[in-house]
Structure formats: C-alpha cells, structure tokens
C-alpha cells in the first residue's frame, strides 16, 4: 500500500457550503466535539451522557491506545435530492513508530460514480451481478465529493488548506477511473504519537441501494457514507484499499459524535446512543448520536419505521437494551426478531465474550432495499419477507448472523479487505451453531411465483453442515486459496471461500478437537483481539497454543493451499474362508482338495475374510476413522492416517461385512463427497431409488398434463 498508482487531481473542488451551524470541534480536546450546544433540554443531554458513561463504565473498556481515529460529523439529508451534505472533523493519532506524510481516505460511494469503477467492473464478473445498475435510472448513481479539506491549527500543526493537493489513488488495480481512495499529502508529516485534526466539507449523492447502502423510496440506509481514514500501519504505509465488489471494510477504532438532520417525524436509527433531538426551522430535526470505541458509524431513517424496545437479560451477561426498527408489515414477526437477537447475544456472550456496548439497534429494512443482512457497530440489519414460515430459518438465521457480527467484526476488527474469512467465516460457523442450539434443525423453504409464496418441507431437515452453506463450497472446493487477500478473490467465489470454507473447517476442528477446545480457541482469540486488528497468524497462533497441538499442517491445507478432501470406500467383499491343501485336524493330517471338503471341515465354524479398500481421491490429507460393521452387529473401528492413496483392510471374522465407512461421524465436512464415504456389502438402493424416481415421475406426469392443458 505504499505506492499510489496514477495519483491524479481530485477534481475541481469548490468552497464548502455549510448548511448547518456546526462550528467544528474544540481545539486541544481529546475527542472531536461541538462548540455549540443544541437547543434542547440540557438536562436531557446530560442525563443521556451520564447514562452512556455509566453504561460504558460497566462494560469492558477498550484500551485507550486503540482509539486512533475519531470523528465529529454533522450531516443533513435532503431526501428529495437524495443528497447528503456534511462537515466533519477527523482527529487522527499516529499510533505507529513511523511518520505519516499523507492521509488516505476511503470515498466508498464513488464505487457507483459510473460504470468504470473497480466495484462495478468486478461486480459484472459475477454470474449474477448484484448491481442494481443493470438498468440504471438517472438518479441511481452516486458520488462522494470532498469539497474542502483543511488541517486545523493545533499542537505542531499550522492551519493549512489541502484541498488542491488531494489526489485519487488506485493502489490495488491501477484503475484510473476508480475514485474510491483519496490521498491527501500533508505539509508536515504526522510524527509518531502526534495527533492531527482535519476538517472536511463534503457532499454525497445517495445511490439506489448498493452493497447495503442507499435509498429506496423514503427508506434511507446510510452506510460507509463519509470520507473515512484508512489504517496507518506499523510499516509506515496506509492500508486503504479501493472498494471492491467482494470486500467490505477496515478501519481504526475511535469515537463518533454525529448529528443527522432529517425531516421531522422521520425515525432515525444509528450507531450508538441518541443524546437528543433538536427541531429546526423548515420541518427538519437534528438527531445527535454518540458512540465510543467503534470503527464505523451507520444510520438509517424513514418515516415508516415502527419501534419496539426490550431489554436482554441473561445470568452472567451484561444487559443489553435492544431497539427494533421494523417495517409495519412485519408486525407479526417482532417477537421472532427479538428472540433471534437474544439467542445470539446469549450464546455468543457465553461462548466468546460479553457484548460490551449495552445497547443494540436492530433494523428490519424496507422491502428490496438491498440493505438486508449487514452489520455495523451497535446496529445491524436483518431481513425478512411478508410470508416467512417459522422453521424455515428466516429471519432467524440472518438475524443471528448479523447480531454475531457485533462480536466478530465490530469488536474484533479484522481487515475485511484482506482477511474477510476471519469474521465472516467464524461468524458463519457460529451462526449455524447458535441456530441449532436455539431452534434445532431448519426446514428448507422453496419459493414460488416470483418468490413471494413460500412452501416449507418440514420433513426435510437442514443441519449444521447445510446451514454452513456447504453447497456453495462444493462449487469452489478447488479454485480459491483462502490465504489470498480477499479483494483478489474472484467475485463469484469470494463468498464461498470466505464464509463457507472457513465455517466448514471450523466445524472440522470442532469435531476433531471437541467443542470445549474450539470454544476456548475462539474465546481466547476474541479476548486477545478486542478492539484490535488481528490477522490470520494471530488466529493460528492461538489455535495451536490453546489446543496444545500443532495444527499447522491442517491450516496449511485448508488455508494456504486449495487441497481437496475426498476419502472413499472403493470396494468391499466378504468371502467365506475355505482352506485348501494339507491341514492338521483332529489329530489327522488331511488334504482338503475340494471346496466341499473345506465346507465339511469348517461348517461348524464358518469364517469370512472381509476385504475393504479405502481410497484417498483428493490431495488433502487428514487422519480418518474407519468403521467396519458386520452382520452379527460387531463393529471394528480403527484409524487410518490417510496419507497413502489407498489402504487395504483384510479381516477374518465369523460374520459377513454389513458395511464399511471412512470418517463415519463426518468429522471432516470439507470432504467433497460424503456419499462415497461408505459402502455396503449388499446394496439396498432399489427401494430408495424407486421411491424418488416415482416422486419425480409424478412431477413429470404433472408437467406433461400441464403441457396438454394448453391444448
């Protein structure tokens, strides 16, 4: 990230049009703040601040050194124009040992500036592009324009306007048309330990929802919306990637104090706690929210939201005030949203560590807003349908998953540009585990008539492996090396590689090490990584240390290589032992020349020689349990190191083999073919094959009759 490719002027940047009467932050204070007090009840503000302070005090404190980037933002939403106009003061502390001569900012909304951006180019590579710009309307594009940028006077810094010095950079792909990274050269570098304050005036056009941000009708979900600093690294470079179709975010922790002006009577949900609301002239109100020790700030507003608040209480865990903003048509699903959130808070809290913020906003986004299923600090979106049968996994699954991201990503702030698997994979694994603990198995739901009408098949059950989305992994089992930085994944396979593969190999670890060990690995990693930016090595180190095993070879195969696991039972046989030749029997020396002689001799003690041939069909190697079950019920269990391409077992037993199975307990969910893991001596496929073919026949007959119904 040291090199800027194609730095270029950031365009003609006019003067800032300050619509709001915010005057910036207090010089010299540790946090960005506000000089002007909002004209609402001072008592209310102080009470709210006191409550927040008390809440924070009770929670697990973030180490002060993790507060690196803090923001005070004032923004006005112009709903008709789909515009945001904002000012912000960014306070950044150089926590490294290297000077920083530049500041690098993300301007995420420029990903949808035009169809030449890196995001849209990459999105078009998907088999099914998620971009809603396939048929763009004139109001659907977006932009993020920095109109002024000044270094504020303070400490060693003189006030200086850096607006004309700004350039765009494309560090990842050199795309000259991408404007999602803005570089600001400084007149004076920020030396280690120094803090710089920068005030920025900006304007942003809100997109039709992309990557969970934007508008639909009068629903606004405003995410990754303001000029946001990258992460300055210990090697003296900025980690500030372009916005990619397959990646999410990475930021430092800090404090946010944000005032949002929206039409009066529109409900607002945001990261943090609301400190107060001011009514302005012109039918708008300003909502002030504040949150410490988070790495992002998101907000949403709509006149249609309805609101319910409840408190999560569980013995041994801190209470959490949950606020649900839901769509009126989902009134009947309010309890389901709360229950799923509470189950997540409970199990994640008990398994990994407590949720420290004390409050949580759950957003049920508008229909097809594209904002469903996304996590931000202290706020997440879930997503449901008008018809959503209980037992089918929605909205429970997505709610648990996004609530889980409060732990894996909001609190453990890994770099999603480079190692998205760390939060997405761990969280997908945990989601499936929580879902099963809370609800049991899930029944598949099939949707008809443009997806509006669901039919659930309760007799079919989806368990942990299915809920980890194994079917996606099967398509990409060989194709993406997980250690590759996430932003370099192919957009079509990134999800399966980050989410599914990790969830499956964590399930493999759980089944091999035991849940207690894996839980300790995850909780230790969680504890060590709170409010920090752990990398893959941190996880592997903890896993080795806590398990007391060298898991390196395992991670080498699943993470650093694209090894495919496929063990099979190639063949089985059980043949009656028939001795031929000379034998000593009953004091006589006999020649058993014919089969009948042998049978006569051995009929009271028939033995069967069972032969089982196992194969390793993939290049992935893991020790395998092997189970041989005999017709008399006897079980022979052994372990194969799985290294050689094949392994032959030959046993003589008084009974024929019933079946042989390799990895009978499915301890390796990464095996791409469970079906060939077992083999019967006497296949019994006729009944099930007939049964399912007959069901299919009914479908086909019905299809033919439907064709005839046209005639």
């Amino acid at each position: 990230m040291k090199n800027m490719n194609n730095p270029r002027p950031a365009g003609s940047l006019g003067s800032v049009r300050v619509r709001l009467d915010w005057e910036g932050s207090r010089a010299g204070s540790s946090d960005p703040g506000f000089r002007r007090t909002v004209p609402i009840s001072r008592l209310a503000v102080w009470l709210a601040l006191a409550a927040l302070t008390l809440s924070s005090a009770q929670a697990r404190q973030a180490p002060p050194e993790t507060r690196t980037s803090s923001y005070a933002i004032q923004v006005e939403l112009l709903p008709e124009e789909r515009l945001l106009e904002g000012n912000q003061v960014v306070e950044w502390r150089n926590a490294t040992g290297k000077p920083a001569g530049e500041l690098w900012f993300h301007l995420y909304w420029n990903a949808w500036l035009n169809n030449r951006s890196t995001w849209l180019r990459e999105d078009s590579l998907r088999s099914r592009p998620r971009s809603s710009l396939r048929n763009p309307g004139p109001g659907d594009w977006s932009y993020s324009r920095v109109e002024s940028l000044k270094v504020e006077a303070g400490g060693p810094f003189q006030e200086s306007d850096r607006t004309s010095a700004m350039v765009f950079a494309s560090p990842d792909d050199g795309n000259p048309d991408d404007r999602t990274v803005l570089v600001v050269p400084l007149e004076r570098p920020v030396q280690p330990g120094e803090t710089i304050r920068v005030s920025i005036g900006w304007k942003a056009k809100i997109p039709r929802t992309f990557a969970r941000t934007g508008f639909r009708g009068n629903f606004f979900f405003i995410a990754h919306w303001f000029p946001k600093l990258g992460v300055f690294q210990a090697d003296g470079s900025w980690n500030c990637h372009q916005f990619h179709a397959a990646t999410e975010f990475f930021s430092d922790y800090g404090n946010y104090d944000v005032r949002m002006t929206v039409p009066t009577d529109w409900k607002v949900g945001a990261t943090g706690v609301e400190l107060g609301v001011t009514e302005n002239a012109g039918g708008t109100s300003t909502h002030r929210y504040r949150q410490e020790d988070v790495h992002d700030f998101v907000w949403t507003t709509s006149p249609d939201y309805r609101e319910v608040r409840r408190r999560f209480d569980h013995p041994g865990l801190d209470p959490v005030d949950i606020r649900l903003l839901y769509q009126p048509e989902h009134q009947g699903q309010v309890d389901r949203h709360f229950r799923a959130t509470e189950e997540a808070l409970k199990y994640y809290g008990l398994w990994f560590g407590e949720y420290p913020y004390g409050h949580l906003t759950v957003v049920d986004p508008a229909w097809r807003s594209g904002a469903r299923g996304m996590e931000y600090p202290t706020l997440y979106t879930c997503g449901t349908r008008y018809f959503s049968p209980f037992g089918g996994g929605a909205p429970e699954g997505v709610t648990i998953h996004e609530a889980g991201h409060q732990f894996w990503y909001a609190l453990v702030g890994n770099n999603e540009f480079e190692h998205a698997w760390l939060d997405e994979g761990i969280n997908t694994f945990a989601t499936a585990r929580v879902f099963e603990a809370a609800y049991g198995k899930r029944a598949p739901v099939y949707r008809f008539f443009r997806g509006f009408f669901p039919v659930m098949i309760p007799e079919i059950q989806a368990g942990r492996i299915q809920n980890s989305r194994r079917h996606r992994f099967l398509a990409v089992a060989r194709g993406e090396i997980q250690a590759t930085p996430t932003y370099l994944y192919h957009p079509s396979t990134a999800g399966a590689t980050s989410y599914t593969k990790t969830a499956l190999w964590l399930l493999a670890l759980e089944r091999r090490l035991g849940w207690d060990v894996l839980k300790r690995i995850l909780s230790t990693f969680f504890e060590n990584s709170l409010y920090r930016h752990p990398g893959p090595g941190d996880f592997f180190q903890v896993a080795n240390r806590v398990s007391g095993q060298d898991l390196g070879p395992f991670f080498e195969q699943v993470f650093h290589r694209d090894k495919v696991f496929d063990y099979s039972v190639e063949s089985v046989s059980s043949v009656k032992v028939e001795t031929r030749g000379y034998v000593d029997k009953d004091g006589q020396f006999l020649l058993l020349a014919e089969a009948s002689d042998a049978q006569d001799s051995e009929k009271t003690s028939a033995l069967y020689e069972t032969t089982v041939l196992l194969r390793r069909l993939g290049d992935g190697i893991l020790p395998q349990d092997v189970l041989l079950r005999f017709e008399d019920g006897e079980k022979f269990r052994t372990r194969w190191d799985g290294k050689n391409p094949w392994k032959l077992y030959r046993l003589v037993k008084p009974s024929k083999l019933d079946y042989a199975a390799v990895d009978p307990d499915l301890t390796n969910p990464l095996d791409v073919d469970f079906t060939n893991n077992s083999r019967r001596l006497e296949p019994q496929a006729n009944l099930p094959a007939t049964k399912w073919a007959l069901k299919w026949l009914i479908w086909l007959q019905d299809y033919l009759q439907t064709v005839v119904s046209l005639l």
Partner: protein
Amino acid sequence: MDARTHFLAGLRLVLRTPSLLAWVYFTTLVVAFPLALAMKHLLQGSFEGSLVEDNLRRGFDLSWYEEFAAGSSGLGKTFGPRVVGILPVLSNLERLLDGKLHQVDPAVAGAGIVMVLAWSLLLGGILGRFAHEEEPHSRSGFLARGGLFFWRFLRLSAISGLLYWGIFRGIGQPLHGWIETATRDATVERTVIIYTVLAYALVGLLFLATQLVLDYARISLVVEERRSVLLALFRAMGFVKDHHRAVLGLTLLLAAAALLWFLAYAWLAPGPNQSTWTAVLLAFSLGQAYLLGRWMLKLWFLASQTRLFASSLPQAPPAEEWEEPPMENNPTATY
C-alpha cells in the same frame, strides 16, 4: 342453457367412458415412464451401496443432494426436493403462468412434444365420443376419428401456441416487468405481492378465456366436422359471445371442481418419509390418483363443453353411424 345441467351431464359422460380416462392416463404414463426409468438409474447410480441409501429410504438426504446437484447435468438437474408433496404441482403451475414450460431439460421437452402429438391424436376420438355418445363405438373408430382430426388439431395447436406466447411472453412478462419498474421505490412487499397476484390473475384469466375459445374451436371442428381451423376459431368466438352466461357458469363450476381437487391434493400430498415398499406404493398411488383426477377434470371440461356446444346447435348432430370409411377415401389410412 343451464350450466349446471351440462356440468352434471359432462360428469356423467366421463364416468360412463372410463376407457377414455384410461387412454389419456396410460398415454401420459407411457410417455413419462422411460424417463422415470432413466432417472431411477441416475439416482441409483449416485448412491448405490452407500449408507446414503438408508437416509433416502427413510426420508431425504440434503448432503447427498448437494453433491448430486453439483455433479448433475441434463435430466439429473430436474431432480430435487421440489418433487415432494404439492411442490411439483406448484412448480409446473409456476412454469405455466410464467410462460416457461419450454424451459426444461431437452429430454423432458421431448416428452412434452410427444405428449402434444399423442393428445392431438386422441382428442378427435375423445370429442367425437362425447359428441356422439349414443352411437356405437369401437377402438378403430376412435383412432380413425383421431387421425381424421390430427392435422387440424395440430394446426390449431400452432395458432394456440402463438396466442399463448402472446399472453405469457407478450403480456405476462412485460406486465411483471412493469410491476418491477412501477414498484422500484416501493418499500412494502405486500404492495408488490398484490400487484403480482393481480398480474397472475390477469394472465390466468386471459389464458382461461383463450383456452375456452380454443376448446370450443376444437369441439366445433369435431362436432361440426369442420376442415378450416380459422373458421372453427371464429365459430367458437361467436359461440362464447352468444352463450357467455352458460359458458361462464360452466367454466366457473369446473374451475371450482379443479380448485377443490388441487386443495385436496395439497392437503394429502405425501411427504418424503416412506420407508417401505407398501408406503412407497401408497404414496405413488396417491399421486397417481391426483393425476387421474386431473385428467378426469380435463375430460370433464371437454365433455361438459361438448354437451353445451351440441345443445346449442339448431338440431342435434345427426346420429350417423361412425363406420370405418373405405380405405381409398379414408384420410386416416396412414395412421
């Protein structure tokens, strides 16, 4: 003309001609069965010998299915949990209303074409039987009449294909596209559901109305022994217009019967958990009972409509003896 009278007369007619039901049912079965055998072979080959057999015997195995689906192509792609219970019926209804009946595996589409040809061959005999119930009938006469009208029905099928294309692709698809555009800023799913249901209802009504006219055109072809498909079509339109109350009443009664049958099967349709041969055959039989009932409804439609149409004629169609025409004049001789 009382719709209820013809509704009941149609039912009596169908019940008195079980052989027709047997013809159409077994024709479908014969067309479908080879593919079902191929599917059985595919399925059996995918799990034979594996312990997955047990899971698939007791119920379904999603892990196996994920692997099967990942490695399948062609006919194998048409298999999935959507063959359970009422889902196959809904799948086909959805295909019909979305105008996507042709978007299937080529083998299945081929079976569909064979079925269209077979139906076109049988329909003449069926309608002739309904129109001339009192006459003596024979299998050869049935087939001869089918042969006689085969090409006319095929020509009419070509016209109906164009009409249905117009309805499903020319109206249905743009309508749903319009809904997509019109509700681009809708934040309430219920609103879009209502629009979608209305769109399906409109397409369904257009389909039923067209089908109604085409049914009477086919009946006109047979009852009035017309050669011109176009004239039969105009005749049918005129008939529907002149007797709209009776036509509508009869259609509503028949549609209600069809809906009841569908709901009954939706309630009773067996799930995936049959683990013995007896249970498997019972479940299959229930499915076949539904399909038989569906055929019966189709014949009931045709019989009632034929009776209604025949009763509208100035005089009943002449009770001519249907005899095997001399070979040299018999246009069906090639069949």
